[in-house]
Each structure stands twice: as C-alpha cells, then as structure tokens.
C-alpha cells in the first residue's frame, strides 16, 4: 500500500510530488505542518504551509520563499492532491491530507483535540494511512480539564499577593494559549512576558488573537510585579533571568507535569498539566475515529501506541524520525 510515500529518518518523502513533509534537513520542496522548530527548519528552497506558519517561519528564520495554502484549499503537485486541515496544535498548525491513486494519507504533524482559543480545532479526516505523533503515548498521560488547571494558577496568585507566579510556557503556542485562557476566566490584569516571547505574541495579535495588556518583564521594578503573572520560556525558569522577580512561585504549563518527578526535577512548585499534544485517550480515540487501515507513528512514546494498535487489530508501524521533541515543549 502507498508506495508513493516513503518515511525516512529525516522526514516523509512524497515521491510523485517530489516534496518532503517536515524535513529535518534543508530540502528543495518542503510541506510544513506547523511552526515549531522540530517540524519547521530553516534553509528550504520552497515551502508550502499555512499563512500563519509561513509568518512564524519568517519571524524565526528570516524570509523564506513560500506559498501560503489556506485551510481546505487544494494544491496539486505531480498528481497528488494536497490539502491543509486544522490540527488544533498551535496557530496555523495543519494536518496535511494527501490523495493519489485512490488512496488518502493524513500526516498530522502535532495535534490535540481539546479547545484552544488561539487556533482552529482539529478536524478528523478518514483515511487509508494515518501518520500520527505519540508525544504522550502512554496511558499515564491523561490531561485534566484545562479550566481546572487555570483555576489552580489563579488561586495560587490570590493566596500570595506579595509574590508573583512565574509560568514556564513554550514561546510559540503555549504562552499565547495560557494568556487567552486566563483572559477567558476574567483575569484582565497586565501579564508580564519574557523578551523571547514578545515578537511571537505580537504576531499572534496580528493574526487576530487578542491577548489584552502584555508588558515586558524586563526593566520593571520587582514590586510592580507583585501579585502578577509572568510568562517565560521553560529554560529561563531557574536561570539568572528569574532573579529579578519578587519571590516567584514557579509554575510550568506542560503535559509532562502530570508526572511528579518531572516537575520536581525542574524545581516546579506549581505544575500545570496543560498540553498542546493529544493525550493517550485523544490519540487512541482519534485513531478509532479516522479508522485507517494502517497507522504510522512518527515520534514520542511510539512503543506503547504501537502495542495498543496491535491489540486493537490496527496495522501500525513506528517511523523513528530523528530530531523530534527537540523543543522544550509539551
């Protein structure tokens, strides 16, 4: 089945289109699912991606030559019909739907099934081959309701008015989602952000994601930040940058926070289980829903998902793509 696409350690090659999906090495023709660095690399000759993803790539790698493909729009390439369908992961994220010779293949990139105010929801597309991620592909990963996690964040803030809550959140996607979720819960105070997030937040605003008042966390007196929420990339949580803050409660928004030792290793006091990836139930429910005759697993805890597929009479294989999960996300 489907001799026209080939998984390689460095990406998925679509032969009739002579194009690569999320290649980890520079390629002449690249189809990119979303803007995270482990999927969108710099240096490609020509990129096909959503308008939002192209803007994110331009911000990160300078201008790249690219063709914007709208959700639902069809592009034909060497006899392959290609569509970009919302993946619900981050702004602009897409599943790439490929049709050729009567076969349909869906490459999800990264995805989740729960609502996210910063991007369009995942659309399930029935297919012959479903190429899925498995970042949280173990049954211990069951993300709780986002609202209850946000409530815990706000409660910590209100109990300690003299401190601040420093939330480690990935600069592309998670940070903006956390801000929007806070706004949706009626938190309209200024939110302070690390310098590394400023341009990405501005880009989200340009695409119509309203985030209320954001202020830079640098050059501000510690006392002004008392009782405030501050967002930084996870790498800055325990670094020199955080020394300026007034006795911060260290929080982290990530699916990994479900496991206690993971949180403790990172010195996190307030673990918030908020993920941009599908949890175990979402992964298995999605496979059932799109009902492929074959499932390919790109990266993550693929062993466990592979085992689950086998016990549910679903043909599956692990692709072992290199260089995924490089970004400090989840």
């Amino acid at each position: 089945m489907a001799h026209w696409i080939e998984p390689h350690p460095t990406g998925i090659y679509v032969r009739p289109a002579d194009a690569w999906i999320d290649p980890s090495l520079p390629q002449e023709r690249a189809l990119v699912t979303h803007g995270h660095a482990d999927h969108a690399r710099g240096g490609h000759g020509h990129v096909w991606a959503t308008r939002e993803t192209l803007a994110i790539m331009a911000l990160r790698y300078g201008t790249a030559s690219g063709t914007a493909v709208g959700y639902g729009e069809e592009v034909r390439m060497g006899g392959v019909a290609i569509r970009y369908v919302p993946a619900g992961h981050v702004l602009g994220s897409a599943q790439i739907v490929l049709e050729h010779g009567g076969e349909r293949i869906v490459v999800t990139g990264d995805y989740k099934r729960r609502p996210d105010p910063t991007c369009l929801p995942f659309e399930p597309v029935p297919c012959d081959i479903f190429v899925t991620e498995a970042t949280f592909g173990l049954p211990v990963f069951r993300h709780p309701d986002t609202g209850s996690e946000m409530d815990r964040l706000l409660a910590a803030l209100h109990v300690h008015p003299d401190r601040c809550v420093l939330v480690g959140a990935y600069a592309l996607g998670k940070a903006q989602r956390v801000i929007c979720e806070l706004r949706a819960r009626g938190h309209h105070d200024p939110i302070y952000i690390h310098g590394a997030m400023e341009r990405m937040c501005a880009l989200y605003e340009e695409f119509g994601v309203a985030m209320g008042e954001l202020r830079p966390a640098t050059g501000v007196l510690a006392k002004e930040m008392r009782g405030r929420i501050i967002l930084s990339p996870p790498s800055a949580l325990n670094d020199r940058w955080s020394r300026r803050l007034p006795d911060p409660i260290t929080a982290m928004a990530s699916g990994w926070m479900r496991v206690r030792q993971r949180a403790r290793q990172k010195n996190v006091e307030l673990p918030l289980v908020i993920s941009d990836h599908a949890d175990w139930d979402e992964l298995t429910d999605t496979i059932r829903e799109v009902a492929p005759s074959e499932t390919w697993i790109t990266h993550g805890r693929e062993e466990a998902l592979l085992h689950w597929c086998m016990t549910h009479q679903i043909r599956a294989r692990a692709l072992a793509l290199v260089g995924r999960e490089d970004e400090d996300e989840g």
Partner: protein
Amino acid sequence: MRQFSQLLDGLVYTRSRNGKLDLIAAYMRDAPDPDRGWALAALTGNLDLKAVKSSAIGEMIRARTDPVLYEMSRDYVGDLAETVALLWPKRDDQTAELDDGSLSLAAVIDRLHGVSRAAAPDALAQMMDHLDSSGRFALLKLATGGLRVGISARLAKTGFAQGFGLDVDDVEQVWHALAPPYTALFDWAEGRTGRPDPEGTPYFRPFMLAHPLEADSVDLTDYAAEWKWDGIRIQIVGTGSETRLYSRAGDDISGSFPEIAAAFTGHAVLDGELLVKGEVQGAAEHGGAAASFNALQQRLGRKTVSARMMDDYPAFVRLYDLLIEGDEDLRTLPWTDRRARLEAFMPGLDPNRFDLSAVIDAPDFEALADIRAGTRDAAIEGVMLKRRDSPYVAGRKAALWYKWKRDPLTADCVMMYAQRGHGKRSSFYSDYTFGCWTPDGELHPVGKAYSGFTDEELKWLDRFVRQNTVARFGPVREVEKTLVLEVAFDSIHDSKRHKSGLAMRFPRIARIRKDKPAAEADTVEGLKKLVS
C-alpha cells in the same frame, strides 16, 4: 480526601521549609475533624495500618489494564503508586476524572483499618474509583505505609503548632499522652479544653545547646571540660514502663535503635551522644571506643532495623547529663550536682549500651588547648565547656555552655562539576564537586560542598561555572579544571562510595584560590594521610 491529597501534593512540590509549614498550618486549621487528626497521624508516622503489599497493588492494576502498557508506564514513571494512580481507568460514567467527594480521609482510614489483607485489594479498588489521580496517589501511599513527602514528624508538629499559635515544645510535651485522631489536641489548640496532661508519658524535653566559643580562653574553675563526641545527640526518656529516644530536633527515633530503647528500663530522662562501637579509637584515654560518624550513618534514618545491622553497627550511648530521675526534676540544679547524680546513676545501667562521657582533667586552659590539639580521634569533634553552676535550660543561653570544635583540616582541591541549588539558590550553580590529583595526573572527586562562601563569592562562582562549562549532564555542568578551592572539613574517612576512596565530613569552601594554579592542588595520596 481532596484536601488531604492537595496537601500532600503541595508538600511534594514545595521546597522551602516555611512554605511547607504554611501548608500544614493552613490544613490543620481548615480541615474538618477527624480528618485533620488522621492527617497529623499520617504525617508524623503514627498511623498504624496493616500495610497492603505492593505486589497486591501490581495485581490490582494488571487486572484492570493491559499488563504490557502497565509495565511500559511503570518503567517511564518509576514509582509504583504514582504509576497506578495515573493509570487507573476512569469510570465509564465519568467524562473527566474527579474526586467526587464521597470519601473523607477518616472514611479511608476506617476502611483500611478494618479490612483483611485478602480483601484489601478489592476495598482499595472501590475507593480508587471515587478519587482523582492525586487522591489515588495519597490513598496508595497510605495503604502501602509511608507517605515519603520529605517531612519529619517534628516538622509536621511545628506546622500544627504554627496553625494555632502554639509553641511546638508544648505540643511535644503533651504528644505522647494522646493518640490519633488527637481529638484532645485539637480541642486544646482551639481553646475548647485545657492542656492535656502528659504526666506518666515519655515526652520530649527541649535540649540545652551550646554557643561556639569565641573568647580566647575561659577559666576552668568556672567551666568543666568534656569531649564533644561526633555522633548524634540523643535524649532517653523512660517512664519505667516505656522508653523513647528523641533526636535533637525532637523526632522519635526509638524505632531506629530498638536495642538502646530495650536496654533502658528506668524512670528517668538522660542526655547523651549516640555512637557506634569502634575498634580502637579513644578506648584508653576517653573511656570506651567509638567508631567514626560514617559507621553511625549506616544506622540513621531507618524506620526498622535488621538484626544484622545491629550486629554490624552496634550502638551505645555516651551520657552527658541527667535531667530527671524518678519524679524529681534535676534541671534547676547546677551542672556539678547533676553530674554527681549522673555518676551515681550509672551503675544501674547496662554497661554494654551506656557509658559516661569523661570529664577532661586539665589544670588550666592552656593545658586543655594542648590536649585538644593532640587529639586525632575520629569520634571527637572538639571540646565542650560547661559552666559548673549552669542549670539545664532549653536552647542556647549565653555563657552557660560552649562548644570548642577542633580546628578543621583543609585541602586545596580543583572544582570539577557544579550543580544548581534549590529554593533561593535555584538559579545559582552552588553545589560543587571537587577533586584531587592521582599519581597518573587525573583528578578524582573527593567531596562535594555547598556552603562556606559569601553571597558575593557565590555570584563569582556561578559566573565561573557558566563561563567555563565544558559539558552538561542533565542538571550538572562539568567545568574546566582550572579553579582551586580551599576546602575545610572536620575529618576524612575511607569510603567505598567515591572513586578516590575517601569521604569528607562537613566539607565547606573556605577560600577561593584564584591565585593558585590547578596543577599545584593537593593529591589523593596526601589526603589519605589525614584519614583518622
């Protein structure tokens, strides 16, 4: 259950002691009765449940989920209770997992108390279905015995005392007159009744402590001199029918040293040093041989102890003071009188488990200084100076007792690795592993230190680590082997744990030797000559 499971989660994630105390205090004030009493029992290690075996929990989860997925999950998570808590399938009628509030902590304890070992897995499973993952984790920790949230009984009691504005030593005094769920304690804390009467129970009395000696000398006609033994300070409290042992922090350590508790059947309160018997050290001149602190460490922190451990590391107590004899409180008497009473008390004790800390016979302070300087006994930390007319009073009172520690040993070592600290130091590389040279010209680690430097020096060291990193291993950075640290330590021992075969006691950074080339740092061979 949710309140309790949230408390446990908070204690797991909170690093600072004050933060933990705040959490415990708030819980003790806010949680309902009798839940909070059971929680206090669990936190202080006084919950006596027949433990469910972890194998039974493994079976329970295998029956409910794919065993292969369970094994994979357990490999990933590590901890059994946490794996099962996370993996537990949610009920079909639930859209999201939740603690439905139907189980109170008291109900859980009640259920676990009554259930037979055979019926325990079913009872547990029924309860698991009503809890969220935090609640399931708390339940499994309770059921398997041992919460392991990194707090001592003393800290739990301190948190309780803080919650009601009480003095923890007052709580400690009445503690043994009470039993879980401590209704009388909460009644007293909230002013409904008077203070429970501790009479006849083996309760802890606060220790008398010493200031470091800063004066150049003291007059030995006013002060008696004793060796300061390098074990752990211990209080023996016997009521005649029951004996308890307390650490300096007031933790009940009777379970770790059952042979000592069993050997004391008197009605008295004594203060002494817990030591492990040694081969030769100090036998002649100091009255009885004691091994170095390393040997004692094998026995510390154990909830239960095997016969083998007791044989390999036999413990005894070297007595310093007699606080109470029978119904008579001696604490207001001068030290001289208490000492005479202690000496008279000795013959009634098992000589195999108890001996007397000798008074050092020195005509004047200079002679004492000579004796102190000439001592290389590993079990001696220094000299104690006690005012002959001093009563036994709680805490550190000026000019009554002094500790005059032996001058530390020092070595010039080379920084090899650095790791970030915790809490306020979490952004600083503040824990340093350092090494000395082998004859082959390699550096072997000889110790690790995270104190001794000033805040300014810490900033400088942090910058050095960041600018001289050559490799990273998770949280650890390997640095260029160029910086010499003068390390002070109380003593050094043979150790199988380190590649160099050495382990330092109380290492701290004495000076940063920016002036010294790394090649001129000390050698492992040189350090071995200091082994006591």
